[in-house]
């Protein structure tokens, strides 16, 4: 048995991309191309030289903004995509050479709730996928009842999935991933689109699964989720893993930094340059809150006392004014800002 549950070495995934249309006098030039004619493709690198070693029994969080390469990494690991170069092994099996053995070792939840059949009942869905996962019928029957019980769906197991709430559908999707009791679970944004209660229940289940000994690779762009669930976190941006450590160690990296969070009314994006030019400001990230022209400013500095008067002076300028202000402990979001100069939501 391999020492690691998941290993990736120099994993790269490039996608062919059509060249953007040329512009002429501000208008896009429409070029005629013959159908099926091969046009010289340019490539977009979605995953760029990723190296991972995930221990058995650990929850590993892959944290990054949308389009960072998290889902592409998961799709390569679960054999839906083939890497352009590099290798990946799941449960000791090579994802390209031994895809069937990889699929037998994995339970995967991809983002979105439409990965089950809405015209089948919850139980029929699980029976169907149990057959696809080659689980012997007597074992499958027992396992399905066990999972329906665990997910509190027994009473509604014989109703069509189309009648379920979003949270219930997600629990069926989770049950599908757990059917074969696989040692390794891949969860791609498991709480995306769920209401707070359903998201909390999903997080509880993830922690229960860890206690049972499952190895879990979880992608998320919710920093609180990554912080709460993960033993270790890999921060991914533009296809590269830019930091990898425990949540506490990642936050300790910027412990000398302080974070000033401000809410400013009437803020204009062009004012950012003036605030950033204040000596001692290492990072500034702004976000429109959408209420009463209010913006949120996140300032990173080594000495908040020294820069505060100047920042307040710049903010209370020409009709803009400070509405609220806090000095906070760094979060994983601040780690990301510190590493990339932008927020996770960008």
């Amino acid at each position: 048995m391999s020492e690691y549950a998941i290993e990736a070495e120099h994993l790269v995934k490039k996608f062919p991309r059509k060249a953007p249309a040329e512009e002429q006098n501000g208008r896009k030039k429409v070029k005629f191309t013959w159908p099926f004619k091969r046009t010289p493709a340019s490539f977009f690198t979605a995953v760029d030289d990723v190296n991972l070693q995930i221990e058995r029994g650990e929850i590993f969080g892959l944290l990054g903004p949308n389009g960072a390469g998290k889902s592409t990494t998961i799709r390569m690991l679960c054999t839906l995509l083939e890497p352009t170069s590099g290798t990946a092994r799941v449960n000791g099996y090579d994802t390209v050479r031994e895809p069937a053995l990889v699929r037998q070792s994995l339970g995967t939840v991809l983002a979105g709730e439409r990965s089950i059949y809405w015209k089948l009942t919850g139980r029929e869905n699980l029976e169907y996928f149990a057959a696809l996962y080659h689980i012997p019928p007597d074992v499958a029957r027992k396992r399905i009842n066990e999972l329906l019980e665990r997910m509190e769906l027994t009473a509604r197991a014989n109703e069509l999935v189309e009648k379920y709430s979003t949270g219930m559908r997600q629990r069926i999707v989770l049950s599908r991933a757990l059917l074969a009791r696989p040692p390794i679970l891949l969860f791609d944004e498991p709480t995306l689109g769920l209401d707070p209660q359903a998201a909390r229940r999903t997080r509880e289940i993830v922690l229960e699964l860890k206690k049972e000994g499952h190895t879990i690779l979880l992608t998320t762009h919710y920093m609180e989720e990554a912080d709460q669930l993960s033993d270790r976190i890999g921060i991914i941006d533009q296809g590269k893993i830019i930091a990898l450590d425990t949540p506490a160690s990642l936050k300790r990296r910027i412990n000398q930094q302080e974070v000033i969070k401000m809410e400013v009314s009437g803020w204009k994006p062009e004012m950012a340059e003036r605030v950033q030019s204040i000596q001692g400001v290492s990072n500034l990230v702004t976000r429109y809150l959408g209420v009463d022209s209010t913006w949120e400013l996140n300032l990173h500095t080594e000495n908040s006392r020294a820069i505060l008067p100047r920042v307040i002076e710049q903010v209370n300028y020409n009709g803009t004014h400070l509405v609220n202000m806090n000095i906070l402990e760094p979060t994983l979001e601040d780690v990301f800002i510190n590493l990339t100069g932008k927020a996770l939501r960008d």
Partner: protein
Amino acid sequence: MQSTLTNEGLVAARSLSRTSLLAHLRAFWAVTWREWYHFVRYPTWVIAFVIWPILFPAMYIMGAFSLAGPQGTGITRFTEVTGTANYLGYIVVGTTVWMWANTMLWNTGLVLREERMRGTLESNWMSPTSRFFFVLGAGPVHAATMLMFVFATVVEFRLFFGTQFNANLGTLLVVALCSMPALYGLGFSFASLVITAREANTFVFLIRGLVMIFCGITYPLSVMPAWMQSVSTWLPPTIIIRAARAAALNNAPLSSLTSDLTLLLIHGAVWLSLGYILFTLIERSARRKGSLGSY
């Protein structure tokens, strides 16, 4: 892979998944019943099954009525060319076989697109089941629904037009069975096209139209120009229609159709092999390009 239960209740390094020939057959059967449940849970199919068997041939039948003349004088010429005076039966068998071949072909080809639309293609393909089974598994359901369609056609035409069929059911069944490999093979090739081209409707309409013209669904091949006749001899639906007409209208024994059936089986071997190779190549290319989940 060794089972390594470390503590009571802890997950093992090996999952409950046990691949075997029996497990593969169970997976195939699961795809079939999934498809059947989807078929019966969209009840609008009943309307299609009542209306289509009569609606589709009706336009050709009306055309035949008008061409035959008020006293049916044109029928003599039709009999000379086709060898049967039962022009209603001739048209109905042609259109029904065309519909059946069409359904087999396109449903096999489009099954992946349907999965894409449902959003379930990737969750299926993440399982250890062979990806061919997801295309093949829907076949029995399509065959069963077409049997129902044929039954509805026969009942409706006897009821509304008094059409007589002099069928050899055994031969007809063998014709249907011998047609399947070729149609599945074509379906595989088409499924590959759906993976790579993502949008399949243009191809469906183009090929459906070509088959409709070249395979003689309502007229004998001899009315076509010579070059069209040579193209049509290479198309499996032409052979299927010819053999089905002989079995359904002339009570042809199996022995009289040996050459057509052999030809169909050869087509089947060629198209199945070609479809398998194409499907494998294009499925791998889709995994490389990342075009599997998008449509």
